[in-house]
């Protein structure tokens, strides 16, 4: 067990990092630790948790903006927002249940540090799109702030957004400022059953091209749909293709009608009402259809139109079950365990079809041995090393978390 530090103030964090920088001690950075089972394992002499950097420092519902200390639990943020009829626009996904970690434990800092977005991303953008400002401490123990609290801000480089998805390898965020949106008055889901992957993705793309503002567009292969909680949908033994509409009631009703008219060649549609819609999408948000078991889980980002071909190509090498999110352009793929986590085949197929793949669930020994994140092209790798050195020249912040030796 490494030395656990819980700084309660920015200066304490600076102090700890300065000490480690001087001695070149590697630091593992965590929020609640719920994502420790994802990415490459870090062998830290010191562990820093942001858990004591906690609290909402600013919330202006009329300006759609909130600031919170990085260690504030996401659940607290969402409760505060819900009390004022608002929410995070990007529906951050909770990978806890799928990776053997706790559910609902993640911190707001970790949400942005890993750029975790859920189904609503197709309409509203990713976590990084809503990140307005960051305060943090880099590997030089410098406290800095970038961005701000206003919606439009091009003052200097967009470093706040640049820190999103850096997995704590560039800086430890101490406070994040982000944009929020109002909860829609109502929501509904339109579902088509039994479509093969290629037709389902065609349907999702057709729906996204309509001006009805689809806020969730997913396809679950039959085996995956059988793991849903919804009693009707799980027992159908058919694939489930679902589209979410959110708006004021009359608009949802009108748009649902237009959507079904436009998609009627795909068969008869089922509908989920407001309550069922909330349940269905909250299941997907916890990725409960990809439960933690002795299998591997991959996350593949590609063009929607190539996604079914990519999945079919991987299936030639190994059994695989797919859950397509983001209108088909994000594939959660479950495959059996293998010594190299299927890396050789999956990366080769992804390279042929275009896109990138990340290994989400595997034993620590596997994640330490294979490339977990998409390997970088040589020029991108050079920039990556340069950026790492600019923030953390001693290489002490989450070393090896994303790439070996970075």
């Amino acid at each position, binding site marked *: 067990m490494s030395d656990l530090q819980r700084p309660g103030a920015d200066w304490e964090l600076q102090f700890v990092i300065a000490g480690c920088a001087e001695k070149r001690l590697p630091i593992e950075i965590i929020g609640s630790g719920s994502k420790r089972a994802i990415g490459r394992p870090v062998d830290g002499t010191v562990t820093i948790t942001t858990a004591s950097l906690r609290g909402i420092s600013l919330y202006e519902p009329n300006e759609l903006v909130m600031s919170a200390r990085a260690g504030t639990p996401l659940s607290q943020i969402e409760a505060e927002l819900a009390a004022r009829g608002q929410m995070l626009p990007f529906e951050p996904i909770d990978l806890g249940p799928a990776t053997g970690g706790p559910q609902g434990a993640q911190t707001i800092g970790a949400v942005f540090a890993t750029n975790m977005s859920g189904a609503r991303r197709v309409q509203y953008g990713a976590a990084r799109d809503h990140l307005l400002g960051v305060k943090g401490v880099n590997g030089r123990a410098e406290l800095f702030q970038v961005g701000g609290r206003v919606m439009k801000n091009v003052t200097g480089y967009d470093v706040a957004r640049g820190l999103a998805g850096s997995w704590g390898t560039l800086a430890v965020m101490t406070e994040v400022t982000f944009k929020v949106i*109002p909860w829609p008055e109502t929501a509904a889901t339109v579902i088509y059953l039994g479509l093969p992957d290629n037709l389902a993705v065609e349907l999702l793309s057709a729906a996204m091209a309509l*001006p009805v503002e689809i806020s969730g567009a997913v396809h679950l292969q039959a085996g995956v749909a059988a793991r849903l909680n919804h009693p009707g949908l799980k027992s159908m033994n058919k694939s489930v293709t679902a589209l979410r509409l959110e708006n004021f009631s009359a608009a949802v009703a009108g748009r649902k009608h237009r959507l079904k008219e436009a998609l009627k060649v795909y068969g008869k549609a089922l509908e989920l009402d407001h309550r069922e819609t909330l349940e269905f999408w909250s299941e997907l948000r916890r990725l409960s259809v990809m439960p933690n078991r002795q299998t591997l889980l991959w996350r593949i980002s590609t063009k929607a139109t190539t996604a079914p071909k990519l999945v079919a190509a991987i299936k030639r090498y190994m059994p695989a079950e797919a859950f397509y999110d983001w209108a088909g352009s994000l594939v959660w793929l479950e495959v059996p365990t293998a010594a190299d986590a299927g890396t050789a085949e999956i990366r080769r197929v992804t390279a042929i079809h275009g896109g990138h793949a990340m290994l989400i669930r595997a034993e620590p020994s596997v994640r330490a041995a294979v490339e977990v994140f998409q390997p970088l092209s040589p020029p*991108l790798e050079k920039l990556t090393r340069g950026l790492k050195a600019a923030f953390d020249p001693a290489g002490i912040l989450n070393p090896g978390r994303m790439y070996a030796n970075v």
Partner: protein
Amino acid sequence: MTLSRMPEPDRAVLDRSEAIIKDLEALIGADGVISAEDGRRAFEADALTAYRQPPLAVVLPRSTEDVSKILKYCRQSDLKVVPRGAGTSLCGGALPTADAIVIGTSRMNRVLDTDFINRTITVECGITNLAITDAVSAEGFFYAPDPSSQLACTVGGNLAMNSGGAHCLKYGVTTNNVLGLKIVLMDGEVVEIGGPYLDSEGYDFLALIVGSEGQFGIVTETTLKILPKAETARPVMLGFSSCEAAGQCVAAIIGSGIIPVAIEYMDKPAIAVAEAYAKAGYPLDVEALLIVEVEGFEDETARLMRDIVDIARGFDPQVIEASSSPEHSARIWKGRKAAFGAMGRISDYYCMDGTIPLARLPEVLSRIAQICAEHRLKVANVFHAGDGNLHPLILYDANNEDEARRAEIAGAEILKLCVAVGGCLTGEHGVGIEKRDLMEVQFSPSDLAVQMRIKSVFDPHWLLNPGKVFPLSALATAAEHPAASEAA
């Protein structure tokens, strides 16, 4: 206006200008190089016209390979480079130095791929913003960011400045609509980042490059999101007897859960000028006018407009005029869209671009009026109220040196005010040379060091778009400080 000094040109470079021009001609052909004085004069300024400086030469590449060859040569010859799209920058972002090579992207303006199923378009960066929407509108799509210069400005310039526009309240700014790009670094290396996928791999270099004001490299191609057009969009015009009432109305609309596509604000002086020019039917006796636009299907926009009018009634509006037809909508927008041009017909103006938290609007507007009065200047306000992005237009006479100087000083005071209330120096125009020396108002030395080290990662010798973004004093410190070049 001469407050912002540019770095002194390198005499040694000027002395070998003939040889440099010959080399450039050999690289991409004589027809791609402009070296005659009258030709270079056309590139001496952008839309911040108070600053002018012809460059050493202008090159107009036709391809990524051309750009790569030119940059590699410039790096080897230690030449400064100023990238340029259409030259519509309002902050001097494309202002040359006498010893710099301007690389203009105007010849690289092709649409490379439209993919309506995956809803993306890939273009060369010299294409105009509006031409992107034109390329996809027949299929019912549009490209969302809509800076008011969209007829002329290039998407390359939009990427460099992370441009916004009136409709970004709903659709976000450039960075929210970019999926991938091809960038040529100063050493000639071509790097592809992201692609036609929603998330890019690894560090978010897209976020860093978009808004880097041409200081990281030259982006030659980009893949953008395109969105389905709403069936209809309708504005409603609301006139108020005070800016407080208008500001509170904006907050109440957003707080109610409605996100309009645009909320535009004009004050009395702006209304008068816009109305005189465009005959849009604006009320001349109100202190503040809001144009609130909603979109959706016909029945939805009717309902949303009713809701907005109901909210507005709580703030005692003097005028409520909801658009009843497409012609009516066009008339309401005509005055707002013409406001800057109309203002330019009656006076020179200096357009500011600070952003503030919306709740501070009334006090900021009254402070702006005070600041301008103290400097014996008139001011008109036309801006994007939904996101707090102010555009005070300070009126002055460019031929009166003292007045021009006072305008620049008043402008700086206004921007400091924006920062003091929790906002920022620039919401969508960029820092360029204009706000360069105010950066220390918003950022501490370590904040600036964090940014400057990223610049060094991409351009270790600081050859790209020199003299912009950072105060010259901070640059001098950085040059002495080994940390800034360490990453190289």
